[in-house]
């Protein structure tokens, strides 16, 4: 064995560069590149999302309540060695000598924020070097406040009883969207000044937050100590927030995983064909070594060393490429990822090596056995044919080991199950098609001896080789077509989420008496007829289930924006129950399905609200799925007209304005009481995300495409030696070059066409499963992609096949025969 290992080591590079192992080498490189680029990317994205999520919270873990939080939690956090900060947020008027503005006051301790960055600049735009809170008696304000109230640095403003000096302008701060006051401009004050302000009274709307950060273990131990939280305190964790982040990233990650899985499978197919050719050609070498005294362990050692070196070298090469590709993907995803990413962990490296080892094992196991058990007598018999039928069990073991590994790797048994089923089904169908083709062609008498006929005869004569080629072509094409369809539909579906007429402004605080004036103004100035939606500020008090004792307590007592309307909004889809039974008579409510699920609601439950000074009950009549990307006013709770019509309300609308800045400046001057929120930055961010994610998807798809082309080439070249020899013989006995080309053309055309038709038919089946089960998209066959794939597949197989015989056609038959 040791001598075999040394011999394998000495001969490695000459064997690799001689060509037989090159396709195997590149197949593994592609598999490792694919899995590691996605692995590196996923690894870093996950860290990035955690960081972004922590930034959104300003901490790793937050306790939030609308009433004062018991200091005992602070003691527990100290016991768990956690860092600690505190914020108190409320709405108050900021008053200057001339004007005032409703502002969100965020009073913070000096350790704020625990995560993310706070950026405060002075009048010259230079960052002020402060800890997280302004000194007592000073305040930081957002630019919007300074502009609205004409405030400069060192000017004085007052909040309640307290006068405060403007120390700086807030450019950025974390936990921006952590409270109900997100729409109002923010001012940050020192928490020590709150009492003196005297604005927090009984019944004031205040959000108290206690922020914690620390190591994972310390956070876990703190969380364990919080098991029984009072119902008014909500626990928020970065990890929960991260799951809500970046749907584009989440969708692209699914695609990346799918593409990566397909690349590995196609690489395995390519590797199988490469190994088959390698083993066929290596049988002479191995038999000769046996004649010259090589033992079974020697041959085994030789093979193991070569394959180990292939795994190592191809993995290193693949990892370098994977890491580079990940960099490319990250640069295209910059629109989505805004934070400097941490370095990746070692996990993708380990996965890369393991993938390479499994690909090599799955493809070479049967051949290692055959080669090490080769009888030396083959040399005298000139018998170098490999019969795999006796090694069927090893193939099965290799097949299931490979898919077992992929199941563990992708942690998605369902997906792997569907892929295995598709593989078995398609292989079996292609086998039957191949058998049928050979049977039909064998019935035809080819008498006129044209090149086309010769090609058809060759298909029959090659028998199992022809069937194998149909199977390999078909499987490679199947995965490529499915991925091409997935890529196209995914990118299209992202594009559809932001249509041209997506609103870019929200207008709210609109009173009924203003509706007509605003409507007329917008129609005259911009040709817009706004659709006003009633907005009712309410509170969900409790829920109950008739004739049942379900406890909803810990989910109740929450702020709720309500509306009422007759019809279901365009951007909503009814998923359970029915829309109003009698809108003007029956008091009902339709609830967002995600909120309903989190509250454990069922259709028929009773909800009690308070709004406009009165309390009322409504029956849950339906659940809705909300398309939030529509940027239209959307509500968790929609009341039936019977329930909502009489409640005091203001109105909200969303509009799309061209040349928005000019018009909105005029609008705000004309209607100073109306609040306008510009959505353009958010929309631009979303558009950027979509185009970034689409581009990243293209790169990954390209990798799978290369693997597919490699598999097709490997398959075409798998019986090239035999084809070359036969070409030389028929050329020697008088066949013209044109005839040989026509023969190859007809052979590859038929094989390509049959495999392409089968692949296209089955790709629609597999695509529909993947769309429905994994991407949550509705599948409708993309005829352009399917048609184009069909033509390209036939074209590629046809031309690659014809090119593969070119060399032997132009070489002297004598030389070819002598060399073979």
């Amino acid at each position, binding site marked *: 064995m040791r*001598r075999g290992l*040394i*011999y394998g080591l*000495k001969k490695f590079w*000459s*064997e690799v560069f*001689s060509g*037989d192992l090159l396709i195997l080498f590149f197949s593994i490189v592609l598999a490792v590149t694919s899995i590691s680029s996605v692995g590196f990317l996923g690894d870093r994205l996950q860290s990035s999302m955690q960081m972004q999520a922590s930034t959104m919270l300003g901490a790793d873990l937050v306790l939030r309540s609308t009433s004062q939080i018991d200091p005992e939690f602070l003691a527990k956090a100290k016991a768990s060695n956690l860092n600690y900060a505190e914020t108190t947020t409320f709405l108050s008027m900021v008053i200057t000598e001339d004007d005032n503005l409703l502002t969100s006051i965020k009073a913070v301790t000096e350790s704020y924020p625990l995560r993310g960055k706070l950026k405060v600049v002075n009048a010259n735009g230079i960052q002020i070097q402060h800890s997280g809170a302004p000194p007592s008696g000073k305040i930081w304000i957002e630019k919007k406040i300074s502009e609205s109230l004409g405030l400069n640095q060192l000017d004085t403003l007052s909040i309640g009883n307290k006068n405060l000096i403007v120390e700086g302008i807030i450019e950025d701060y974390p936990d921006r969207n952590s409270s109900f006051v997100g729409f109002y401009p923010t001012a940050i004050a020192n928490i020590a000044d709150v009492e003196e302000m005297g604005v927090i009274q009984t019944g004031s709307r205040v959000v108290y937050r206690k922020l914690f950060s620390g190591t994972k273990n310390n956070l876990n131990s703190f969380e364990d100590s919080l098991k029984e939280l009072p119902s008014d305190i909500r626990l928020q964790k970065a990890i929960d927030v991260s799951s809500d982040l970046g749907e584009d990233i989440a969708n692209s990650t699914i695609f990346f995983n799918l593409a990566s899985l397909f690349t590995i499978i196609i690489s395995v197919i390519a590797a199988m064909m490469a190994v088959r050719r390698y083993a066929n050609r290596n049988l*002479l*070498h191995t038999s*000769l*070594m*046996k*004649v*010259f*005294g*090589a*033992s*079974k*362990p*020697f041959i085994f050692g030789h093979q193991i060393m070569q394959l180990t070196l292939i795994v190592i070298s191809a993995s290193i090469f693949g990892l370098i490429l994977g890491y580079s590709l990940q960099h490319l993907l990250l640069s295209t995803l910059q629109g989505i990822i805004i934070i400097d990413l941490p370095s990746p962990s070692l996990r993708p490296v380990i996965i890369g090596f393991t993938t390479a080892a499994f690909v090599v094992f799955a493809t070479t196991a049967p051949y290692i056995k055959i080669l090490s058990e080769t*009888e*030396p*007598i083959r*040399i*005298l018999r*000139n018998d170098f044919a490999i019969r795999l039928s006796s090694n069927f069990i090893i193939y099965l073991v290799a097949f299931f080991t490979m898919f077992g590994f992929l199941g563990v790797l992708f942690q998605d048994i369902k997906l792997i199950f569907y892929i295995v089923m598709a593989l078995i089904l398609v292989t079996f169908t292609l086998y039957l098609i191949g058998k049928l083709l050979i049977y039909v062609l064998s019935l035809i008498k080819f008498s006129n001896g044209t090149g086309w006929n010769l090609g058809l005869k060759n298909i029959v004569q090659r028998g199992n080789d022809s069937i194998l080629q149909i199977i390999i072509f078909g499987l490679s094409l199947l995965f490529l077509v499915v991925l091409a369809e997935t890529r196209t539909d995914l990118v299209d579906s992202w594009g559809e989420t932001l249509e041209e007429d997506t609103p870019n402004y929200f207008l709210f605080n609109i009173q009924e008496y203003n509706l007509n004036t605003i409507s007329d103004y917008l129609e005259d100035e911009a040709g817009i007829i706004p659709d006003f939606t009633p907005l009712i500020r309410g509170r969900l008090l409790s829920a109950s289930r008739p004739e049942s004792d379900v406890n909803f307590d810990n989910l109740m007592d929450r702020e709720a924006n309500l509306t009422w309307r007759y019809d279901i909004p365009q951007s909503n889809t009814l998923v359970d129950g029915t829309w109003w039974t009698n809108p003007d008579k029956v008091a009902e409510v339709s609830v967002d399905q995600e909120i309903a699920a989190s509250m454990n609601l069922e259709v028929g439950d009773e909800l009690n609200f308070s709004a406009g000074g009165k309390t009322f009950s409504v029956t849950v009549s339906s659940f809705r799925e909300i398309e939030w990307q529509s940027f239209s006013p959307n509500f968790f709770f929609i009341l039936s007209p019977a329930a909502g019509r009489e409640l005091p309300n203001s109105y909200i609308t969303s509009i799309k304005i061209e040349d928005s800045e000019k018009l909105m400046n005029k609008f705000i001057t004309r209607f100073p009481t109306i609040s306008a929120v510009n959505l353009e930055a958010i929309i631009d961010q979303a558009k950027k995300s979509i185009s970034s994610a689409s581009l990243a998807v293209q790169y990954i798809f390209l990798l799978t495409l290369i693997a597919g082309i490699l598999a097709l080439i490997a398959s075409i070249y798998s019986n090239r030696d035999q084809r070359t020899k036969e070409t030389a013989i028929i050329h020697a006995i008088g066949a013209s070059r044109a005839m040989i080309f026509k023969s190859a053309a007809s052979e590859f055309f038929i094989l390509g066409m049959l495999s392409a038709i089968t692949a296209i038919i089955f790709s629609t089946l597999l695509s529909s499963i993947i769309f429905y089960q994994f991407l949550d998209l509705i599948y409708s066959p993309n005829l352009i992609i399917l048609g184009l794939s069909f033509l390209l597949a036939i074209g590629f197989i046809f031309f690659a096949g014809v090119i593969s015989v070119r060399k032997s056609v132009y070489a002297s038959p004598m030389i070819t025969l*002598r*060399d073979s």
Partner: protein
Amino acid sequence: MDCFDEFTDKESVSRILKNKAKEILKNLILELKNITKEVNSPEGLLTIVKDINLTVEQGKPISLVGPSGSGKTTLLAIMAGLDLPTLGTVNLLGSEITTLDEDKRAQIRGQDVGFVFQSFHLMPRLTALDNVMLPLEILGDPHSMDKAQEALEQVGLSNREKHFAAQLSGGEKQRVAIARSIVNKPKILFADEPTGNLDKKSSDSISDLLFSLNEIIQTTLVLVTHDLFLAGKCKEVYELSEGQIL
């Protein structure tokens, strides 16, 4: 005294006979006893060689001749331990190889046996020098390159070291194959139709080379051929017909 003389004579005759037998045994490099080889074929059980007994003395080249299908190559494979007989025993270089497993037989072949084939069987991806080094590399010989260069020099191809098989003529390929077969200084050299794929001129040259090397490296040549002229150069010629020695 008579008795003594008689005893002495008997003893001496016995001793002489024993010594002679020992000497013969010592000189025997290959012994086949009752060798029969049968294989299954679509037509039923087929006997390829039948009840063959044969001995080969060290240094005495022998040849097996006969028409195609007479069982020459099968017999050669059995002699060299490349195949096992259905019945009978083979003693090669003092070891009864018919009782040994494939790896043990491979060990004997690697150390003391050389082969030349009709189809040359050079590795197309290796240079002439690498091809000749192959048997020594399998043995783990640290001087494999020097020895391979020497062997190529012996067959007159030192100027072709870096050539691949496809760059050599038929005669040159067989010379490389011969260099490969003698590189480990084998005690016995099996050649299966070594001139079967060559023209007359190359054939004569190869046969001269084989017999001259046989003398230089003191190996024993076992030649399978249907070239009677070539066979005639051996000290003993066995003719096979339908699996039996005539």
